[in-house]
Each structure stands twice: as structure tokens, then as C-alpha cells.
């Protein structure tokens, strides 16, 4: 699930994390802010779909947790960029993520019942894993503003928590 955003992030990661990567391949702070915000929005949209479609309490509760946390983090990101007078800058990675997520949501929208629950939760595990790995190896090391870096570091801990939470829910569904 979410194969496309995963591939997009992986490609982005490889390009940026190569040992002799040119400076131009490292995302700038305005781009990092945009990517982080976009990644959050994608999870909020997926959560909204799950809240609407799922009839399983554990899944709906989890989706509500995702919606609440990612909205809080995204609000904090917006407050920070405003304070720093940074304008988030759209970029190829954000666009690839958004496009792939839209396709994935369309796929999920066609599923029902247990098949939807399973696909959504497996998605959540995989998606958070990918975002965490991108944060850890590329976005955090590339961030130059210390406040942005610190927000991303807290974000990483939150999303690592989500990954474990999603794994628990996935285990409970079996």
C-alpha cells in the first residue's frame, strides 16, 4: 500500500543521502517545511477516509488519533514558518507524495469492511515507516534552522509512536 509515495520518498532519500550528494540535492528549509506539512496532510486525509468508512472501533479510534496528532503538528509547523518568516516551497517530492496519496486514497475508497481496515492499517505502518526514515536520514540532517530541526525531531518521535500504535492495531485485527 502507498507504494508510490514510498517509492517517491525512497528516491528522494537515495538522491539526498548519497555520500557525495551535491549541495543542490539537499532540500532547503522552505522545501523541508513543505514536505513535512504535505506528509502530515496525507495522513489526515487517509484518517478522514477511515473515520468515514470503517465500522471497527479500533480502526476509527486510531484514525481519530492520527487526525488529531497530525493536525496539531501541522499547526505547529505553520506557526513556526510564520514566526521564521519562511514560505514553504512546493517541490517535486511534495508533488509526488500528494499525487501518489491521491491515487492510494482512490484505491482505499473502493474497499469495504475488513479488507478496508487491513489495507488502511497496513498502509499506516508502511507510510509512517517511510516518513520516519526520510526524517531521520534526510530531512532532519538537512534542516539548517535549529527550531525547524527540533520540530522535525519531535515529529519523528511522534510518528515512530504512530508506527508502533499502527502495528498494535494491525495485530489486534488479525
Amino acid at each position, binding site marked *: 500500500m502507498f507504494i508510490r509515495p514510498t517509492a517517491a520518498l525512497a528516491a528522494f532519500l537515495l538522491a539526498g543521502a548519497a555520500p557525495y550528494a551535491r549541495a543542490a540535492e539537499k532540500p532547503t528549509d522552505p522545501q523541508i517545511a513543505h514536505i513535512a506539512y504535505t506528509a502530515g496532510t496525507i495522513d489526515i486525509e487517509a484518517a478522514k477516509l477511515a473515520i468515514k468508512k470503517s465500522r471497527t472501533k479500533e480502526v476509527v479510534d486510531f484514525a481519530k488519533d492520527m487526525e488529531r*496528532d497530525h493536525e496539531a503538528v501541522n499547526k*505547529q509547523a505553520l506557526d513556526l514558518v510564520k514566526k521564521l518568516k519562511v514560505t514553504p516551497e512546493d517541490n517535486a517530492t511534495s508533488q509526488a507524495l500528494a499525487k501518489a496519496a491521491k491515487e492510494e486514497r482512490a484505491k482505499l475508497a473502493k474497499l469495504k469492511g475488513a479488507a478496508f481496515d487491513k489495507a488502511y492499517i497496513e498502509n499506516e505502518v508502511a507510510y509512517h515507516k517511510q516518513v520516519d526514515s526520510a526524517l531521520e536520514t534526510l530531512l532532519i540532517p538537512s534542516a539548517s534552522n535549529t527550531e525547524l530541526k527540533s520540530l522535525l525531531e*519531535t515529529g519523528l*518521535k511522534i510518528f515512530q*509512536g504512530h508506527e508502533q500504535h499502527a502495528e498494535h492495531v494491525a495485530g489486534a485485527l488479525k
Partner: protein
Amino acid sequence: MRASLLPLLAALTLALVASPALAATIELTIDKLVFSPASVEAKVGDTIEWTNKDVIAHTATVKGGWEVTIPPKSKGRITLKQAGAVDYFCRFHPNMKGHLEVSP
């Protein structure tokens, strides 16, 4: 049925008499998904109070036991009723872990 009420009443009376004199409030903070201090010692009757400095909600959850919800920029508390050592975690972010040593 009547016989089983007695020990309950006795325990209740004992708790009422014993706790006000000794009870303390132990303050913990949550900052950037870390319970601090991570491990505390307390007594039955003490209150544990978590202050959440994060912008997201957390819980202090004991598997198969109690759960306290700690809203963002807010506090959550529990009065300890049972002696023993317990591990707790945040149900929303299971990577957050804490430990309580509760003596009688």
C-alpha cells in the same frame, strides 16, 4: 455476601484514615514524548500528576490496568490504590514508557 463486605469496609476505613496524613503529590512532566522522571517511587495513597508540555495528547496506560488521559498543555493525575511495581506507556505513542514503584 454480608461476610465479604467486612474486609472491604475495613480496607476502606483504613484507607480513609491512613492516606490523608501521608499522601503526597508527585509531579512528573511530559516533554517531547518523554516521561520525566522516567521512574518514580511512591506510596499507596499518593497522587501522580503529569504535566504535558507537548501539543498532542498522551496517556499513561497500564496494560490490563488503569489509564489516565493527559491532554496537550494540560495535566492528568491518578491516586495510587495498589502497591507494586508497574510499567506504563502512552497508548497513542507506545514508544513512551514510564515506571512506578508503589510501596504499601
